């Protein structure tokens, strides 16, 4: 068993740093939270810029529509909540933010399986499917603390329009360095595809990276792409990397229905049909676990299990 020692980063710490920097660089930035600033990472902003921080209380629908009002008045609101409970306000996001193309940045924290202890009620495995259908919405899912910081700043300071940023809790793979560049609409090739092209994002990018190393020991050359922009997805990179490979694999901590696997399938089925193995949460809910590693094992999403599935598919 591979012990997951590379998950030593924290999304919320990175978010906290990004928010302070965004607030320092642009006075129109305001942050709203639904009574979880200690958990999401907005607390540091609240302490530094109390006049620009609103704790709306435990009311996510109000959170989203209040942020919309602040955007109408010229602010750049960043509304943060657990991804699961932000989805409670999906209809508000659709009808009030998306329809009017408002400049609101929604940050869904504790997404995917990252909130291992809290179990199925808290594990957002459907958010990408929900958000991908909203016209004009940009969806970003950084893997590392470095990417989180850069992409939150990019989305906030340099991008006009609604953005959903999907973050885990902690357990972030430090797979990028501070000198890596990220831009909205882009992806990052970690390793070029040969036999297999693997696409992943967020915390699972670290797991997929380990799976790729295991495959190499078995003589299988697998590439890996960090698809940190889920929408608009980087079609060119997906097509070029897939063209080289016999098998396309998507790895995600999301329901395989409507997530990255679906997005990649949409691109390839139109441009260049390929056999696609979708690895993720197979139409089920999560579970509570004592450690992140334990939950990945329970869900069949450890590097070994992923490598086994890919080897099985190659035959």
């Amino acid at each position: 068993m591979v012990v997951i020692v590379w998950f030593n980063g924290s999304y919320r710490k990175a978010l906290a740093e990004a928010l302070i920097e965004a607030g320092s660089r642009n006075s129109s930035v305001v942050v709203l939270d639904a009574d979880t600033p200690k958990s999401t990472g907005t607390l540091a902003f609240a302490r530094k810029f109390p006049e620009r921080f609103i704790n709306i209380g435990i009311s996510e629908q109000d959170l989203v529509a209040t942020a919309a009002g602040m955007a109408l008045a010229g602010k750049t609101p960043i509304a943060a909540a657990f991804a699961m409970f932000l989805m409670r306000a999906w209809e508000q996001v659709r009808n009030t933010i998306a329809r009017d193309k408002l400049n609101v940045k929604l940050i869904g924290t504790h997404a995917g399986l990252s909130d291992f202890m809290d179990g199925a009620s808290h594990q957002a495995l459907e958010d990408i499917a929900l958000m991908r259908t909203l016209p004009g919405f940009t969806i970003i899912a950084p893997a590392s603390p470095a990417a989180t910081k850069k992409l939150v700043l990019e989305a906030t300071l340099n991008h006009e329009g609604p953005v959903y940023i999907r973050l885990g809790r902690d357990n972030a793979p430090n797979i990028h360095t501070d000198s890596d560049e990220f831009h909205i609409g882009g992806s990052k090739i970690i390793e070029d595809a040969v036999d297999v092209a693997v696409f992943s994002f967020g915390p699972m990018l670290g797991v997929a990276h380990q799976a790729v190393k295991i495959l190499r020991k078995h003589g299988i050359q697998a590439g890996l792409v960090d698809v940190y922009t889920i929408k608009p997805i980087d079609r060119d990179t997906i097509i070029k990397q897939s063209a080289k490979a016999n098998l396309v694999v998507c790895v995600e901590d999301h329901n395989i229905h409507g997530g990255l696997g679906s997005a990649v399938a949409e691109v390839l089925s139109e441009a260049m049909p390929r056999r696609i193995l979708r690895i993720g949460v197979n139409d089920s809910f999560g579970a509570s676990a004592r450690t992140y590693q334990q939950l990945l094992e329970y869900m069949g999403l450890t590097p070994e299990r992923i490598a086994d599935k890919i080897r099985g598919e190659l035959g």
Partner: protein
Amino acid sequence: MSGERDAAPILNGFAHSLLVTEGPLLGSKDLHLLVERAESARRKLVNFLSSIGGWHAGSSLSSINIVAALYGHWIPSGSVKGIERLVVISKGHITPALYVWFAAEGLINEKELETFAEPWSMLQSHPEARRLKGLVINSSGSLGQGLSIANGIALASRIDGTHREIAVLLGDGELDEGQVWEAASTAAAHRLDNIIAVIDRNMVQHTGPTEMVKPKEPLAAKWEAFGWYAVEVPNNAAAIAATIEALSELKDKPKAMIVRSRG
């Protein structure tokens, strides 16, 4: 990364820009004229409703006096006083009243009414703000969201030190939505005394009488319990206009104005 991006205050420049005016609008003569304008609009509204098969006729008819008072008096009188006043429509299905009023006041072309609800029309069945620039701030149609939006504008205005008042037009049936009460708590928590919730208390909702579906009474007491001032006025354009003008002077709490149709 360039850092400081120009903030684009959407409200500045176009919201309600067509409605501001100059000159006195606060006298009894103005209120008398307002009632006449509202009555004239009501007659046009009845004809318009018959031309569109009576789409949301009841709600439009009960709200025409409110629309007249807010757009025809309250916003212009604010501009005379140097206060930027904004209306957030939360009950989006009153577009027949809204559009007829805009046409009657010359803010949109009367011919435009004939295109109501056609796909390419600026006059969508529920308001699309991006097609109604200068007249409508927010898109609506899904109930329960307007008060939160208004709170957001008020909170932003407080940060900026901008003097704004925001009226939110809500239906009484709409008060079934839990988000209204989330937002009512937010407004009270932040003492947003520049928020005025105007409730069209027409006593009916989609299925029937409001008190049979989900009782709203004691309505004023509910708002007061949430930390608001609450007043009741009869559904009359002059009464609505005079009362909402007076509400500006009340400080420290948000205000609810319950506009009662004859039950």
